[in-house]
């Protein structure tokens, strides 16, 4: 791979050379840092906490190493560079997709900058966050240290290029990120913090818990994944060194069990130990982490609500709040419709065994209706124009512990019902695991919200900003109806209620759309092709 002969020779000759100005490395590093226009991170002169003046071979350090070493290092670097940069590209590959999409959004929404993992040396491909020196919500001035990164050389303070507020930490302390990937978001103003935080939800699929030692200092809970655990339930899993005794009660857990509990966010108090003397061992924590997840969300949350206290919004709650307030800027109106679902119910019974879900059926029916009424699938972003969306992406609201998320069934009109059902299941699983990618929950063009499972017969939904319409679906219930021929019969019926942006969608549009939808649902043979 490497030309060792040449390499060695050059090293030797360069070390024998008279000192050269030690500059070459510096501009290159600096250039790399500024290559990425969005890079809000710089390298500071300060090295590790203890000795700011240690020369580590980095640019802004007060005493750069002597030149022979530099030359040697440089040469080695340049030999390694192609592969190193290739590596960097490769390891950075998954990031651009997500970050570019968020950058696009970022331009639309607000001045929210990403802080990137800087390349602190030419051989560095990824860096580990040692600690965050700033907490979320902190105001930062240009040049303030934000984070300590462990590079391949040493710990380096990384400082911000811009003034602003540290809105969201995307990579918690202790985790690594490839060079060039976003590790935090910097909001230009305090008002933009919630926006940044909702944007933060789109990053980092890992459901890592916040660094334990920092939680106290933070205003909002920092976990990057989209739906953070509801604050009250949030288990303050003990940090590795923390005693097994908490609040007087004793928990005997092995070191690894404690570590796992911390990593998986499991409350050791809720775990039954199977080890000697009832000790909690690793497998108990693993079992607890996988098992109760499904049972917990329904029951767990409420009893733990700290009554009488004020709990700050989680990232997700902040995002919801912001969206809801924004929706007030849109003039909306509502149109309701009652649809008979006997045929749909029958179809559902028939194909349920093939994994088809009611949500998928409703989404499919809606999408097919939207094909005929593109205006209902349109959106108005600037108050001056229609955007006729090219795809029909049905977002379906899902309640998960501590919030609400809208996984999106993309091209619901084109996919067959079986694929659509599979897709739906996958999205729900991901949503529960807090692993939805941004495009999987923010690309909807029309939203469905169904509260029928709770027995709700009708309700009214708020239009999510950026879309044209949302449909609230009530329960399908056996209803006594009079038919045209004067008889009385029982039919299963459900009420749907569409909220729409009246700047672009008018009453007649909705009425026509609902009529089409009811026809499709009442004669659902087309749903299965």
């Amino acid at each position, binding site marked *: 791979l490497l030309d060792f002969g040449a390499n060695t020779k050059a090293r030797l000759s360069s070390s024998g050379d008279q000192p050269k100005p030690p500059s070459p490395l510096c501009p290159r590093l600096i250039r790399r840092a500024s290559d990425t226009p969005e890079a809000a991170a710089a390298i500071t002169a300060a090295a590790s906490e203890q000795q700011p003046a240690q020369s580590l071979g980095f640019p802004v350090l007060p005493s*750069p190493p002597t030149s022979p070493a530099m030359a040697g290092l440089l040469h080695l670097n340049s030999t390694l560079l192609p592969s190193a940069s290739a590596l960097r590209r490769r390891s950075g590959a998954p990031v651009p997709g997500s970050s570019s999409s968020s950058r696009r959004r970022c331009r639309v929404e607000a001045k929210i900058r990403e802080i990137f993992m800087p390349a602190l040396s030419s051989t560095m491909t990824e860096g580990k966050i040692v600690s965050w020196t700033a907490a979320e919500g902190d105001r930062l001035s240009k040049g303030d240290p934000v984070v300590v990164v462990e590079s391949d050389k040493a710990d380096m303070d990384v400082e911000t290029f811009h003034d602003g507020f540290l809105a969201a930490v995307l990579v918690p302390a202790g985790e690594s990120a490839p060079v060039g990937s976003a590790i935090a978001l910097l909001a230009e103003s305090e008002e933009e913090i919630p926006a940044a935080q909702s944007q933060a939800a789109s990053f980092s699929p890992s459901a890592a818990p916040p660094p334990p030692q920092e939680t106290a200092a933070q205003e909002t809970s920092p976990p990057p994944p989209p739906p953070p655990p509801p604050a009250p339930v949030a288990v303050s899993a003990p940090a590795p060194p923390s005693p097994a005794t908490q609040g007087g009660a004793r928990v005997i857990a*092995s070191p690894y069990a404690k570590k796992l509990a911390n990593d998986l966010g499991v409350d050791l108090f809720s775990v039954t130990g199977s080890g000697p003397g009832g000790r909690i061992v690793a497998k108990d924590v693993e079992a607890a982490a996988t098992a109760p997840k499904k049972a917990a969300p329904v029951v767990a949350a409420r009893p733990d609500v700290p009554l009488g206290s004020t709990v700050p919004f989680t990232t997700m709650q902040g995002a919801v709040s912001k969206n809801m307030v924004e929706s007030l800027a849109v003039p909306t109106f509502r149109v309701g419709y009652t649809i008979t679902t006997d045929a749909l119910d029958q179809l559902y019974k028939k194909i349920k065994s093939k994994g088809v879900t009611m949500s998928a059926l409703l989404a499919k029916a809606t999408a097919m209706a939207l094909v005929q009424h593109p205006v209902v699938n349109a959106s108005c972003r600037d108050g001056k124009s229609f955007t006729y969306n090219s795809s029909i992406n049905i977002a379906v609201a899902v309640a998960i512990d501590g919030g609400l998320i809208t996984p999106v069934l993309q091209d619901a009109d084109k996919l067959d019902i079986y694929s659509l059902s599979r897709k739906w299941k996958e999205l729900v699983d991901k949503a529960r695991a807090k692993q939805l990618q941004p495009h999987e929950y923010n690309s909807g063009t029309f939203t469905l919200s169904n509260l029928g499972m709770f027995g709700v017969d009708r309700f009214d939904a708020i239009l999510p900003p950026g879309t044209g319409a949302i449909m609230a679906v009530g329960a399908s219930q056996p209803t006594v109806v009079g038919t045209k021929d004067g008889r009385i019969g029982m039919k299963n019926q459900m009420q749907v209620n569409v909220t729409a942006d009246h700047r672009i969608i008018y009453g007649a549009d909705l009425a026509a759309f609902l009529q089409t939808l009811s026809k499709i649902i009442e004669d659902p043979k087309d749903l299965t092709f």
Partner: protein
Amino acid sequence: MMQSTAAVSISASSVATGAARSGAARRAGGVRVCGLRGEALACPSLRISPAAHARLAVARAVANGAVGGSGEFDYDLVIIGAGVGGHGAALHAVEEVGEACSGLKTAIIEGDVVGGTCVNRGCVPSKALLAVSGRMRELHDEHHMKSLGLQVSSAGYDRQGVADHANNLASKIRSNLTNSMKALGVDILTGVGTIVGKQKVRYGVGFPDKEITARNIIIATGSVPFVPKGIEVDGKTVFTSDHALKLESVPDWIAIVGSGYIGLEFSDVYTALGSEVTFVEALDQLMPGFDPEIAKLAQRVLINPRKIDYHTGVFASKITPAKDGKPVLIELIDAKTKEHKETLEVDAALIATGRAPFTKGLGLENINVATQRGFVPVDERMRVMDADGNVVPNLYCIGDANGKLMLAHAASAQGISVVEQITGRDHILNHLSIPAACFTHPEISMVGLTEPQAREKADKEGFEVNVVKTSFKANTKALAENEGDGIAKLIYRPDTGEILGVHILGLHAADLIHEASNAIALGIRVQDIKFAVHAHPTLSEVLDELFKAAKVNSGLSHSVNEPVAA
């Protein structure tokens, strides 16, 4: 320096006149204060010819009455304790004098087994266990294997097999040691040695009844594991390194009391073999003896990713062995407030709180020597001091028993230094040139001062201190091994280029440190050693990087001009 000069004149006067001439020449540069032979520090260009050396040796030996027997004494030298220190001293004593005559007539008294702690219950068997742990670690690290392109089916181990390996290694080294002494004519006397008077030792098994006289005596009785009060050692579930090295069991969960070298190495062994470990450390930080930066990184590399947790700032005030189906109970109290903090329930506890000198029964009271916390007080030449602060003539103490630096190789170096003195060559061992190593994976090694020590010294003496660091991630060989974790750090004086300390954490750090320790011992400065060539690609280039990165302000000894500021 005053003191050294005085010592020279005293010893010179005791030397026969024939030797005085060459002796004066030899010491022209002053007393050797380095840990190595040769006069590099004082006067690099001065070399004594072999002939002069031999002549000198004869003269010296005559002066000491060492030639052709021991005169009125049974032995020239009796060493009490056949550990690594005693062994090093004995070998040097019999070999020392060179071509012209045989060496000192030497006996070594051992009441237990030859090899002492290091060979039987310390460094040697622990290295065997650590060799196993290193391999286990590698084989279990799927990611590491995969990135090398290797596929290995699941690795397991046979506890007894591992234990046997450690035991066999100890036996082998022990017999090597014994044979080397026998072959060179060291008398190995069995029994416990007691000093009964000036230059007189009694020894024997059970009832010591044999008495011998010796011109010089070296105490090298070593140390035993220190067990704090309140800890009940049963050897099965609560034990010291003595038991642990036999590896009679691999507990699921073991508490290690003390996070120094011993504790750290055992945590490496136990976690590699599948145990979970809880450290109990009295100080506020783990690995308190290490350079803080190294300790921090060591925690990141050796503690945090492993199945280890820890309690710092706590004493284990009471430890009860497991019995009647109950686990080992460890009561922790706050190190400062002494308040009870909590009780740990674990499967086993290893007491690694340090070592206590083994000096009981030496008969020191017979010669008016009072131990200090068990340690035998010595001066910088390892000469034993009596209760009144005077040097006890012809009596020396080396190794753990004097507590200066409790390391096997330090004991050996002190022993050699003593033999140098009693054969007429004054010698002071520079303890700052003695390297230390912790054989975890990766290893930690150090020599000289830690950074806080260096800065304190600098503040006091008014000089500047610089630190340079480099990473194993920048080293080709380390990357080839996929072992990029680690740093090396050099602490030096930018005004003179003197190396004050070097600390390494990384692959084969224990082997890498010697370039630095030799440089310190020989007084080589960074501006000189930076021109020494290192083979590429080797791990030694880590140190090369360090030396080259160091900036020295005055180009004192080299003609190459260095930019003072870039």
